[in-house]
């Protein structure tokens, strides 16, 4: 088999669970880098990971039902995601973004934009959306589909799977 055929069949599927700033940067860095070298890439957002693909990028009362909306406000969205260590009430992710810009490293929002341009398949977890009272309309339009475990296994079959 020649190299181009090998590359054509390569696939990476990431389960984005954490929703922490640094882990999202890791997930999107791996995803965009892999897509750029010819991998098919899927990202399955579940639980905290869903915060990365919300349409409203700041804190907002997103979701259906009082508790869900309150919880949605507390969690925030991609511009509020916390650093997994030394978060300092949300100051650190902003500081980190500033350092990334200064050192010419792609910021989290730039990585998400790149993922969209590279046609990475973005999927949202049906079950965690149900708990959090979220619908597909609460997410950016590039989210391709709302799926569960069975479909994730189907779409990721034959490739590498990663939990971040």
């Amino acid at each position, binding site marked *: 088999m020649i190299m181009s055929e090998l*590359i054509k069949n390569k696939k990476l599927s990431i389960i984005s669970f954490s929703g922490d700033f640094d882990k999202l940067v890791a997930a999107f860095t791996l995803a*965009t880098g892999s897509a*750029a070298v010819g991998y098919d890439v899927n990202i399955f957002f579940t639980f905290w990971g869903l915060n990365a693909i919300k349409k409203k990028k700041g804190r907002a009362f997103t979701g259906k039902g009082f508790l869900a909306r309150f919880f949605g406000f507390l969690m925030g969205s991609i511009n509020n995601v916390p650093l997994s260590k030394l978060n300092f009430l949300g100051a650190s992710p902003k500081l980190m973004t500033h350092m990334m810009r200064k*050192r*010419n490293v*792609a910021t989290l929002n730039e990585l998400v934009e790149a993922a969209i*341009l590279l046609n990475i398949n973005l999927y949202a977890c049906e079950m965690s959306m149900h708990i959090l009272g979220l619908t597909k309309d609460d997410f950016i339009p590039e989210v391709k589909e709302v799926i569960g475990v069975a479909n994730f296994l189907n779409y990721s079959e034959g490739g590498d799977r990663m939990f971040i």
Partner: protein
Amino acid sequence: MITKYLDITREHCPMTFVKTKIELSRLQKGDRLEVLLTEGEPLENVPVSSEEQGYKVISIEKIGGNIHKIVIEK
């Protein structure tokens, strides 16, 4: 045939590959992309991964310091 230009000498992983791939995807067949990149990972991998994805690397030329110019055709 048109030639587009891309400077990724100040970029870091993964944006070196990502920007190249995005620019290549915007070209028509037969168009060329001239990329300025640095030695190390970008020079080792951008030409190889472009070829693997079916693009043609026309030339690789050192243009001074650790900067190289590669021309890729779609």
